[in-house]
């Protein structure tokens, strides 16, 4: 295993993310209607918190990264997504 050199100065390994922003919002997207797998919500999510479930042809939401902005719900052409207050949030 290659030993990591100690790098002086202000650097951080890419992708280091001890802080996740899911705690910013207690309101999260939930699929209430029929997802047509159009991928609009997926492309518009700034956080990349929407995952394509290709097998079931629908989207999944990663609450750990979701900031609760609601763009997905707003842009869904079939209004299948609802922003729902999470229990115990």
């Amino acid at each position, binding site marked *: 295993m290659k030993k990591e050199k100690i790098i002086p100065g202000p650097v951080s390994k*890419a992708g280091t993310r001890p802080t996740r922003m899911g705690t910013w919002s207690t309101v999260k997207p939930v699929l209430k209607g029929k997802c047509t797998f159009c991928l609009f919500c997926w492309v518009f999510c700034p956080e*990349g918190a929407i995952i394509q479930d290709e097998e079931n042809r629908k989207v999944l939401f990663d609450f750990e990264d979701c900031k*609760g902005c609601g763009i997905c719900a707003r842009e869904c052409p079939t209004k299948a997504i609802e922003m729902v207050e999470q229990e115990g949030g």
Partner: protein
Amino acid sequence: MKLKDIAKEEFYQSSFGCAGCAAVLAVRLTIKVLGRNSVYIVPANCISTVSCYYPQAPFFVPFTVMAFAATAAACSGVSAGFKRRGREDIQVVGFSGDGGTADIGIQALSGAIDCGNKFIYICYDNEAYMNTGIQRSGLTPYGATTTTTPSPRFEDRPKKDMLRILAAHDILYAATACTSYPLDYMEKVEKASKVNGPTYIHVLTPCPTGWGFPPDQTIEIGRMAVESGMWKLVEFEDGQFSTTYTPKRQRPVSEYFATQARFRHLSPEQIAAIQKDIDATRD
């Protein structure tokens, strides 16, 4: 390009950007196009500020913070360095805000185009110095209030026409875009990546915090900017301007202004005058 063809892998996550931030979305989509073989030079702006505080490193690809005025010069240097090391395959991307492009960064941008090394300069335009709290920039549109042009005053200068400025530099490729039209934006990024010289993409990124609208309307408001004619999607290539998208519906600018706190002070007469100017520039 189709939505289903876009890379599913994420390359930019867990930034401290506001909920609903179009600039964060623009970064996310840019790296999806360019992939792992790209490096990002970001000066003082929202994106660097939300991506640069140790130990959080939301960029999954190489990234560096750069001085405010210096983005394009750094791109020029990195590009020259990669060329010397036989790594011209690596895409060098500058991701600068409107202030870092049209105001403090304009000199370096002009100079870097002259140097001629290959890089993609992306100006993400939220139309003010948002990172420091919504002060006006050279790209703040006529009529908007900001903290340095506060009510009862408002911005009394039009947006600097960056594409015409760069056309005057004989840049090989430049384009305007908007995060509400992601495929158009991503196709332009891809096109720029194939040009052997400096290129420029100016992407309008609506800002919920700075423009004064709820964070779920980011995409809708960008669409309204294009539909009202306040922002056009064009390309400059081979010395010619062309429109890449003509909106199917043309919206009165009053509808666009009504959605944002920064424009709500405008009187009907002021709005009519702005509408007249926009109508005069329509093809």
